[in-house]
């Protein structure tokens, strides 16, 4: 029985090896990578399709509507209809646009978004490349997306696109700092930049409880900061100023239509999944089960369960929070997130050098919570985060 469950866990690895057994050894590494890449492409494109319909239905329910419910059972075939629609639409390129760059931007965005999956462990032994500097690779690839956004905004020769791109880049650069700094605590603790060893470190248990980094004061703070920065990094609401449709139409992809627009959509969602998967890898124990008695469930199931939970939380947040203003966004990044991540680094250091026990918990918890409260209160008093006052309503 136990052996069989192990086989279920490793079914994709076994299948891969079995398929490769029929091939000459020279082409085996190449074919193995191609298989894995194809699998990742298909899986996450499918996840994108599911997410779009889940998001639309979820947002609808949050706003007391039905959401899409026409195509297929309960509207779950809506993405197919959307895909057909965007494929058959005319691809309009503005006349003054820089055609080559205009074409390359969505391609680069999607390519960069998919490239990030190379270092994300989806299950036990299920990773494309176990790189020594995996986390660094992830952030390096993330910076490619900024370039794609700039290319899209600049090549369209439209003021809305340009403004959207400027906003997007300013936001992405600002939030990349807290994103990287929030993940550095994990790197400090695990002493490795390899995603596989980070996950392996978390996949152990005391009693039934796992050693996920999120279950420590610095880990929890780091996770919260990472998720806020990831929301901003993937241009999701409430940080979706780059595409604030009430101000600048659709931001940097205003001038895109048809399939290129769909590619932007795809790239954005794939990037969001990648950042979420990175958060899972760094803080939520990657593919490891939440309790030791649940380890018999295949590892990839846990990975996708966690990913789906985070995606649903993203949708929930999107349905709840209103969009920030540009100055609020920047203030949050530089005056709240950055000091908090730096303090979190210090907390992680203190945690590392203190003996285990209740005192460590107390001190580290206080080191995270007290500055957070003080900082937020101070910023509130300085009217940096005030409650919005509407002049013309009420």
């Amino acid at each position, binding site marked *: 029985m136990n052996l069989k469950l192990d086989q279920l866990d490793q079914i994709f690895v076994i299948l891969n090896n079995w398929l490769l057994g029929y091939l000459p050894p020279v082409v085996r590494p190449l074919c193995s990578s191609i298989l894995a890449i194809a699998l990742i492409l298909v899986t996450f494109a499918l996840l994108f399709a599911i997410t779009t319909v889940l998001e639309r239905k979820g947002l609808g329910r949050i706003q007391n509507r039905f959401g899409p419910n026409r195509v297929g059972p309960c509207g779950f075939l809506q993405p197919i209809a959307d895909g057909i629609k965007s494929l058959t639409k005319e691809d309009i390129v503005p006349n003054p646009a820089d055609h080559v760059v205009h074409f390359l931007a969505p391609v680069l965005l999607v390519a960069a978004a998919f490239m990030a999956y190379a270092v994300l462990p989806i299950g036990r032994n299920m990773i494309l490349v176990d790189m*020594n*500097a995996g986390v660094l690779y992830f*952030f390096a*690839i993330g*910076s490619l997306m900024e*370039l794609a956004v700039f*290319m899209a905004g600049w090549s369209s020769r439209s003021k809305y696109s340009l403004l959207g791109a*400027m906003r997007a*880049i300013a936001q992405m650069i600002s939030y990349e700092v807290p994103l990287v700094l929030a993940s550095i605590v994990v790197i400090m603790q695990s002493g*490795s930049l390899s995603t596989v060893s980070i996950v392996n470190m978390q996949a152990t248990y005391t009693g039934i409880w796992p050693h996920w980094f999120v279950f420590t004061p610095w880990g929890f703070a780091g996770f919260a900061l990472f998720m806020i920065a990831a929301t901003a990094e993937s241009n999701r609401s409430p940080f979706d100023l780059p595409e604030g449709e009430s101000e600048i139409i659709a931001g940097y992809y205003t001038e895109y239509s048809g399939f290129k627009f769909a590619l932007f959509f795809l790239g954005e969602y794939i990037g969001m999944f990648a950042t979420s998967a990175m958060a899972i890898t760094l803080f939520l124990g990657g593919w490891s089960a939440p309790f030791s008695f649940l380890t018999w469930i295949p590892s990839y199931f846990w990975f996708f369960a966690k990913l789906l939970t985070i995606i649903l939380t993203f949708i929930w947040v999107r349905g709840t929070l209103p969009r920030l203003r540009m100055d609020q966004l920047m203030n949050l990044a530089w005056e709240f997130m950055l000091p908090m991540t730096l303090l979190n680094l210090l907390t992680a250091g203190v945690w590392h050098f203190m003996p285990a026990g209740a005192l460590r918990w107390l001190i580290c918890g206080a080191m995270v919570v007290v500055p957070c409260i003080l900082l937020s209160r101070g910023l509130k008093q300085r009217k940096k985060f005030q409650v919005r006052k509407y002049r013309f309503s009420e």
Partner: protein
Amino acid sequence: MNVSFILLAIITVVGTAAAMGMRNAVHCVLALTVGLAGVAALYLQLGAQFVGFTQIMVYVGAVAILAVFAIMMTHSPEPAKPPTFSSFWTVGSVVAASVFAVLAWAIHSSSLAAHTLPPQPEVTVQQIGDALMHRFVLPLELMGLLLTAALIGAVVIAMNHREEIK
């Protein structure tokens, strides 16, 4: 000489040459990113993974974006396009060509050609971190100081002194 090196070399040289020769400044920066990504790939080929990814992160993610932002912010409203190259471009290119000729001659005539590829050393990030924290801790601190100074300096220089104007 293997295929990957030739390919990467071509990408790098074409990218950087385009970066220095194209008319549109934004195109130049985009070509530059291609060239610098080629350099990063060369680092990876040489086994310096950390440096390669740092190169991508710093140059593509930061320097190129900064340059592009600077180009956007200094976009001159005048419609007439200024000539791409300066008035003494012949002198400049002659100097560059002669520098290359001298360097190439030096490399060609040196005894370095005898060196062949030694076995790939295992460079983990752990080793780099250890080295940074032990042998190179003073340069690291200096670097931190320099970067802080540069950060503050750049902000002070580029900041719009609106109060003074008022």
